[in-house]
């Protein structure tokens, strides 16, 4: 490139020189003009944050200073007042009181606490964090993580030896992996020193032993995530629909008692009432919190077993697995449009707008359906319920709802404030404080203590609240658990991926085969012998399989 490039070269150098000159002289040049323009554009975009800095909202959003309490004449207000009283005045042998007294001596600590991001984190930011600080002077940082990161981030921090977290919110099913990996530490000593043993008995039997592993206690249980069936009484009970259903199927239209009946009823309702009302809606989005819960729930209801107890080969690719997918695909067909993209929150939105006749989901559904949850500004993403008073509660079709995820508060092994952290854990799960927390409108924490189920304050929150609590309790009697053994998260993520692949159109048999292969690889990596022992241990837990629940072991709690 002879001529042209030479000329360009000279011109470039000339331009460069002039530019250098202008720059060094500090003259205005095209660059300056552009800078000014960019600043102008940028300035307008900065108006948002600038105004935010100046806005009066800043104080409340900026961090805990004052605890916002409910008016003292409301049930919630009374529960919160009772919590404060228990913490400051006693009973002096109560866990709440002991925790606060001991923690006051540990001023100067700051606690770093992990929570699931979004709605779940509202409770510590708005209530338990500020309240604890008001009582003991110990502030906390809430670290919000997506559900799968609640597992992986603490591990990363542990490997990095950072001591970044003090209290971990974890699924009970992760305890074996995290305990084996040295990420969490046992709390037996602290429990012996500080806790009131009667408070341990206040747990529903299903949850009582969950934080125990290899003979040690690894945390305190804090969230009764029992899946139940929620249905529209006005739809199921509609006389015209009942007639049509009887005519078509020769059976009565009722709350489904089996998964096949569930798909049938859902499809019928969709056929009759779409696009105003659909039969069902499901949380099918990956990781939010994931398909593994729904799958293992129905898999076991269909008689599926996870492993061959002798060879430890995964048994996903079985008639039970295929049947489960057939049923779940039938549910998808009978669902609202966009079903496969719904996470649990989006599912609630569709439900509350009245578009769905039946869903199975976590306990907050009950509170949101009655417009109780929506009282608070903090939860304003969830719309007003159009179906208040029309919602019925029932156990899962087939009777064995999954205790899906749940949360345990665990002590991080690298925590530099172990004692202060433990005391917060004890305080926040103590009967009076946990009652106030599960009664908060915006909380996603669900009742798990017998004192919660029986609480007259809770039962007064809405007309059917007593029925709701009894349903939760009874479902827990029959519940099945996540597979609590080392590697659960690997197994679970494999199932989640398997399900999303099938929703996207992959052949179920191929997907099951692939997932079974992944499961076997995990088992091999962790050691077949060790996994066999762990699986035997799991099978002894009440809730391992439908034939081995709290109910079948005669430990049911009877409540009215």
């Amino acid at each position, binding site marked *: 490139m002879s001529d042209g490039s030479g000329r360009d070269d000279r011109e470039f150098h000339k331009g460069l020189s002039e530019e250098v000159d202008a720059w060094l002289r500090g003259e205005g040049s095209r660059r300056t003009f552009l800078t000014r323009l960019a600043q102008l554009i940028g300035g307008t975009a900065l108006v948002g944050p600038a105004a935010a800095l100046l806005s009066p909202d800043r104080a409340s959003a900026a961090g805990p200073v004052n605890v916002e309490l409910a008016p003292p004449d409301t049930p919630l207000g009374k529960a919160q007042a009772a919590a404060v009283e228990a913490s400051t005045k006693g009973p002096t042998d109560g866990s709440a009181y002991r925790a606060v007294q001991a923690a006051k001596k540990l001023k100067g600590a700051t606690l770093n606490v992990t929570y699931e991001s979004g709605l779940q984190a509202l409770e510590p930011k708005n209530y338990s964090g500020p309240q604890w600080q008001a009582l003991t002077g110990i502030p906390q940082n809430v670290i919000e993580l997506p559900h799968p990161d609640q597992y992986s981030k603490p591990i990363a921090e542990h490997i990095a*030896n950072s001591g970044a977290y003090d209290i971990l919110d974890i699924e009970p099913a992760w305890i074996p992996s995290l305990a084996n990996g040295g990420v969490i530490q046992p709390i037996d000593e602290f429990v012996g020193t500080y806790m009131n043993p009667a408070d341990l008995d206040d747990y529903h039997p299903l949850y009582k032993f969950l934080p125990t592993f290899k003979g040690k206690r690894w945390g305190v249980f804090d969230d009764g995530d029992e899946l139940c069936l929620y249905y529209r009484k006005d739809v199921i009970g509609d006389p015209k629909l009942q007639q049509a259903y009887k005519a078509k199927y020769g059976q009565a239209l009722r709350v489904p008692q089996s998964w096949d009946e569930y798909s049938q009823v859902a499809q019928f309702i969709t056929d009759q009432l779409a696009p105003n009302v659909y039969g069902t809606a499901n949380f099918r989005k990956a990781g939010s919190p994931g398909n593994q819960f729904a799958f293992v729930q129905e898999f076991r209801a269909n008689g599926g077993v996870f492993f061959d107890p002798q060879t430890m080969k995964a048994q996903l690719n079985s008639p039970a697995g295929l049947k489960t997918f057939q049923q779940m695909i039938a549910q998808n067909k009978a669902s609202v449009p966009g079903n496969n993209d719904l996470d649990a929150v989006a599912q609630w939105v569709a439900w509350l707008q009245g578009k769905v006749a039946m869903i199975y989901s976590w306990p907050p559904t009950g509170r949101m359906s009655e417009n109780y949850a929506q009282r608070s500004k903090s939860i304003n993403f969830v719309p007003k319920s159009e179906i208040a008073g029309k919602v019925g509660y029932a156990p899962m079709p087939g009777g064995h709802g999954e205790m899906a995820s749940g949360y345990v508060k665990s002590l991080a092994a690298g925590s530099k404030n172990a004692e202060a952290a433990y005391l917060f854990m004890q305080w926040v799960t103590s009967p009076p404080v946990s009652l106030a927390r599960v009664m908060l409108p915006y909380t996603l924490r669900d009742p798990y203590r017998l004192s919660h189920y029986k609480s007259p304050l809770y039962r007064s929150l809405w007309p059917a609240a007593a029925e709701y609590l009894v349903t939760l309790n009874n479902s827990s009697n029959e519940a099945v658990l996540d597979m609590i053994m080392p590697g659960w998260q690997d197994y679970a993520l494999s199932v989640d991926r398997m399900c999303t692949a099938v929703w996207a159109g992959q052949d179920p048999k191929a997907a099951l085969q692939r997932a079974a292969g992944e499961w076997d690889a995990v088992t091999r990596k962790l050691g077949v012998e060790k996994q066999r022992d762990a699986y035997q241990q799991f099978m002894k837990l009440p809730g391992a399989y439908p034939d081995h629940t709290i109910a079948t072991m005669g430990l049911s709690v009877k409540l009215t």
Partner: protein
Amino acid sequence: MGKAGMARPGEGGAGLHRARGWELVRFLYIGGFLLFLLLPLYWMVITSIKPVSDFLAVPPVVFPSEPTIVHYTAALYSYRGMQGLINSLIIASATTVLSVAVGTLMAYSLARFHTGGQHLAFWVLSQRFLPGIAVVLPVFLLYRTVGLNDTHTGMILIYTVFSLPFSVWTMYAYFRQMPVELENAARVDGCSRWQVLKMIAVPLAAPGIVTAAVFAFIYAWTEFFFALILTSRTAFTLPSIFRSFLGFQGAQYGESSALTVISLVPSIALGLLVQRHLVRGLTLGALHE
């Protein structure tokens, strides 16, 4: 310089005929492309000022009737966007200074003395293309032995290394184009090499330094992968906050959009500053406009 009657290079329009029809196609394409560029940005900015009820509305709300800044507040404070912003500023600024300083020194050496010949240059340049995952795994393990995990220093160091190719090559191209005569004259007059570098070469290469600085800053400001893995609750940068918005996203559209807008401001402002020298920077000096 221009010869009368001959258009400047490039005015041939790549040789395509100037028919009316083509003109229309041309502007349609440009317009369409601009629309493609701006629509997602518009939607995101609008979402950041919509009240929450508008998220659920069907048909989608094109302009909210009651714009609100509450998401900016929440993003900055509840989601610790403010801390992320400050961390990003600290890390990006320090990276810029370090990267440009170290890079300029090396570039001068390469340009004037051909230090290390082809091999050194090859090695430095190839860092630009190294897959991050190959490096971050061992760095993650190594950082913990020296306690650099989740620290500003740790991030600054790794960002410096990966922005060095940019810095070195931008400055290299500038130094190469600068005539040596001035420097030689200064040497003859008794200046040490360091003085030549400091007093002559660097000031003359100021535009290059600005360009290199901007590229380094933008790299550190927008980098996500290393930040995701190597930071946690102390040194997290603005992009890495977006990890919290996975999962139950519905409740957080406003905040995530607000955070996006905030992080775009320096990016765009600086990008406009350096657009003239874009090509050199993007291709590590292989081409210049």
